[in-house]
């Protein structure tokens, strides 16, 4: 028996979906993920397209991001928008979509990781998870907290696991940290040691928003307050993980590109102005980032341009330059020039 309500076509309602969204199995799908992220975040964060690109790239490359910027420049908005894009399609576990930790000097590791609590009813200890149990964690002002807390956070970042009371708990596969630190106001901070900086895939130095973009931010502030692109499609956790796999397997890295990357690292180690060159780990981490960037530029192969544009982000915070050298960027540019030239010329060879 059918219920016929005049004027309403229940059979052909657009709200009835007969198929699941297709799983992400190829670069097309991965591109779709990228586009959805882009569109949503761009609605929420204006005038920061470059940083958005880098953030998405890091997310897809399974790396973490350290943002260095002045207060009020949109770091938190960016992180929240990123978290807002995600749909947790495994609601059963303890892991939530987005958490924010404000690091202060008096924070304790358990405030980050969670702690075991005695339940007087059951006479048992149970684990109360900390904010680190989330897909996307915003670690605000990470250099303000003590090294103890930093190291707890960094274990989570490196191993995707948390050890509380000598019991190790797994974090989710999609664990993405956006840490921020303030380049000014360094009094009473605990600068991150280079070993810990190495955990971050990118360190992004944000710059002030351009005038036009700033005007646009003011103009659209009202609209964004209520629904910042909330009608745009989101991305599920599984889709992100699938996209990562697709990118890693299907974006081609030519041997010459690998050579170029290694040569850049070698050059940084040889350069007299650099005390400590790029680590091998950074190269390993860089590969998926390069692939992700290639995809985001609609390429199925990594090119020299990827290396050129990501090198500063990847190696910038990893190099320790000799005293008196003012700019790491110029050192890196010198180190890249020759390998990149070789890679560029390769395209002209038979």
């Amino acid at each position, binding site marked *: 028996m059918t219920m016929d309500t005049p004027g309403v076509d229940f059979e052909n309602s657009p709200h009835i979906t007969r198929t699941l969204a297709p799983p992400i199995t190829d670069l097309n799908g991965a591109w779709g993920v990228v586009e959805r992220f882009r569109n949503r975040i761009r609605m929420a964060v204006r005038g920061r397209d470059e940083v958005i690109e880098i953030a998405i790239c890091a997310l897809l490359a399974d790396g973490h991001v350290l943002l260095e910027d002045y207060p009020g420049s949109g770091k938190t908005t960016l992180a929240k928008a990123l978290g807002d894009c995600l749909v947790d399609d495994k609601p059963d576990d303890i892991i939530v979509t987005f958490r924010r930790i404000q690091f202060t000097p008096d924070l304790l590791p358990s405030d980050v990781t969670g702690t075991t609590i005695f339940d007087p009813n059951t006479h048992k200890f149970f684990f109360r998870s900390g904010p680190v149990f989330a897909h996307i964690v915003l670690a605000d002002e990470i250099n303000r907290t003590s090294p103890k807390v930093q190291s707890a956070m960094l274990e989570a970042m490196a191993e995707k696991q948390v050890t509380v009371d000598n019991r190790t708990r797994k974090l989710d596969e999609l664990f993405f940290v956006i840490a921020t630190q303030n380049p000014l106001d360094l009094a009473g901070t605990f600068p991150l040691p280079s070993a810990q900086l190495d955990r971050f895939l990118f360190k992004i130095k944000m710059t002030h928003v351009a005038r036009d973009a700033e005007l646009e931010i003011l103009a659209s502030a009202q609209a964004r307050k209520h629904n910042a692109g909330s009608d745009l499609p989101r991305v599920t956790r599984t889709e992100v993980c699938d996209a990562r796999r697709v990118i890693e397997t299907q974006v081609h890295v030519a041997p010459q590109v690998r050579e170029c990357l290694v040569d850049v690292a070698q050059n940084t180690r040889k350069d007299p102005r650099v005390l400590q060159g790029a680590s091998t780990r950074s190269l390993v981490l860089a590969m998926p980032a390069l692939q992700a960037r290639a995809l985001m530029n609609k*390429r199925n192969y990594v090119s020299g341009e990827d290396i050129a544009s990501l090198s500063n982000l990847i190696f910038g915070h990893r190099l320790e330059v000799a005293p008196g050298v003012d700019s790491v960027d110029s050192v890196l540019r010198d180190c890249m020039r020759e390998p990149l030239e070789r890679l560029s010329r390769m*395209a002209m060879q038979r």
Partner: protein
Amino acid sequence: MTVEKQSRASIVVSTIVRATAMCLGALALGWGVTLTEGLGASVFGAIAGVILGEVAARSRLKTGAIIGGAVSVFALCWLASKFATGFELLPSALGPSGALTMAVLLRFGALIFTGTLLLRALAHRRQNLVVLELAALSAAVVTVFATHRDGVLVRPLWLSDWAWSVGLEPVQVLLAVGVGSVTMLALLLIVQNRGSRALSALVALVALGLLAIMTVNAVGLPAPTAENDLGLLTPPGEPPRQMPPGDGESSGGQGDDAGESDGGQGQDGGSDDGGEGDGGGADGGTDGGADGGGAEAGSDAGDGGSSSGNDAGDGGASSGNDAGDGAMDPSTGASDGGEDASIPPPSAASDGGGEGGGPPPPMPPSEDLENERQQQQQQRSAPMAVVLFDDDYNPPSQAYYLRQVAHSHFNGTRLVPTTRQDADRDIPQGYPTEPTFMPERPPTFGRTVVHHTVALITEHNNPFGIEGMYRFEPTRNPNPSRFTRAYKVQSLAQTIEYRRLFGRRVGHPQWTPELRQYYLQGPTDPRYRQLADSIVNRIPVARRNDPFSRAVAIKLWLDDNLIYTTRARHATAADPTADMLWGNKRGYCVHFAHASVFLWRSVGIPSRIGNGYHVDAQNRGSSSTVIVRSGDGHAWPEVFVEGVGWVVLDVAAKRNEDPPGQPQDEDERDRLGQMAREQPSDPQEPPRRQPQAQRNRAQEMARAAAKAFPWLLLLGLLALYGVKLWRRLVPAFAKGPALARVAYRAALDVLAEAGVAREYGETREAFSKRVQETAPSLALLGLEAERVKLSGPSPADPNPDEIRGALSGVRREVAASKKRWRRILGLLHPTSFLDVD
């Protein structure tokens, strides 16, 4: 900057190399203009400039500050040098020479220091300016050749002497030094920039350098210029020259054909051609040919020409004086007392009134200030030929008269070469290819056989040799790069002393009366006869009927009454000889010869004018070589003495208004002599490293290479354009993955022609983005080219239509955005594709 990436060691090495190159450049510049102190200061300045320039460029100083600092340092030093010599303080403290040295040190040190510092600093800051540095060095090297042009070797003597001693051409040694230093810097440039742009700049630079060097006639002796009216250099086959005895500056005849090199005052060749329209033109032609190597040095040649003209007369004058004196001594005695016995032996040296007569003064001091003058002299005394004596021969006149032609035919105004078959049969005609005897052989009485070899440096129309030439034989050219030809001559040269000629009859007994009359023909002007008679009437009666005594008397009268000067002009007169004799009495060899012959002929003495070269016997010195220089051209009167033949009886005016002539360069004489003789420079020394034949072959090859060079250049140019064309056309028919590459390359070529090229280390995408404005379609081509290479083992083929569309898009876009002249320039640029990589 790649420079910053260099290791410390490579910086040090490159600085050393650069400093060395700059030192060589500074030396090259300094050799010509300064003394040892200045050279030392230049060297230190160059080294300090390179080092400090490098340091300054690496520092954070602004480029403007570096330039300003360097310039102010220079200004300070310059002022200080002015102060050193301009005020009394320093000279009184250090002494004048100390102050001068100080000034030189400051000046040259500061000049070179500032120059090198600026060049280095700028080159370091702006890579393209490296070319400036290189150009400065090349220019410095070229100046060496400019100072050594025409093979005039002045400085550095230690180098050229060494080169001569081992048998090398010094110019080639200098060239090697210059090329070495330039190459050094160029290599450094290439190594450091690795850029193809540097390479294409180098190509241009090499071309420029070659051009500059080609403007300088570096190898070989100075090209002699015709500087007398003797017609010695007229090419064979020319009609006899109609030459007025006056110099004839008649009208503006200096003529187009004569050209600049002929324009000198002392040159009469040009004026002749105004009168008769043949001889001078020929002269000019020869000149031009000889000068050909000099090419652009037109004005130079002109200078040389005019000055040499003066000098030529000079040489002739002084030596004429000499010779005449020497020759005439006996007759002086004769006319005085008529006693043969009292005649002193002729000796030019004893009373060589002429300035050239004394022993040659020492070589001028090798001061730098002398350079210019020396060079001029060198040109004036450009060698024309080398005479090698196989037999020892000392002429009684103390001068070698090398006769080439004789002028015996009186044409109404003056004497010209004969057209008769039976007259002047002792004069050679042209260059026979086999041993030839002259139709008429001088008598053997009072003469001795002299074997000698003449190697011509300049082509002459007739062979010449010591007067009395009777046999001619061509011989192998000992050194074709130096000599145009060589021949052996046998002459029956006069040995009989002049005093023993008295009492002899004149004229040949076998001459027909008509021929005798031919040798007596002169102007109809009765004054000649009157003058001659009045002179003859003064000699003792006993000798008055002796023709030779008469001749000598007339000659002595001319010696006393005429004044030698090359500035004399009589050509405008109807009878130039009369104009001189009864005018200002000033003239030179041609006038004198005519005057004597006309006077002699008027009193019945058969005579003619001999033309050729006159070389003072002293110039031979102890060697057996005589160098004939362009200044040695001469005309002299001759008398036919029965039984002895034609005897030179030269006029030597006692008064000379010309400046003294230049002494001979003994070194050069010996050198040329050795060359003509094909002998090592010193018997003690081991023979030269290369056998002569091999050297000749090498030189011939070098000459052939020089000839082929323009063609090779053209060929290379065509090849480059071919490459350009190929790269432009190949996208039309390329297929598969290669299409992406060749199309992208063609697009880059288009951009490179418009002056846009990828920078070193710039990625393809970044470049595409940079030229977005100019050529938006390039992005696709670049992406495709890179995709084919980087997207895995079997990339998908690019879409040909898309690719070709983008390529034509790039062409269209570049055409729209760049100016037409820029594109045409790019199209013509043969190596634009080298900027593409």
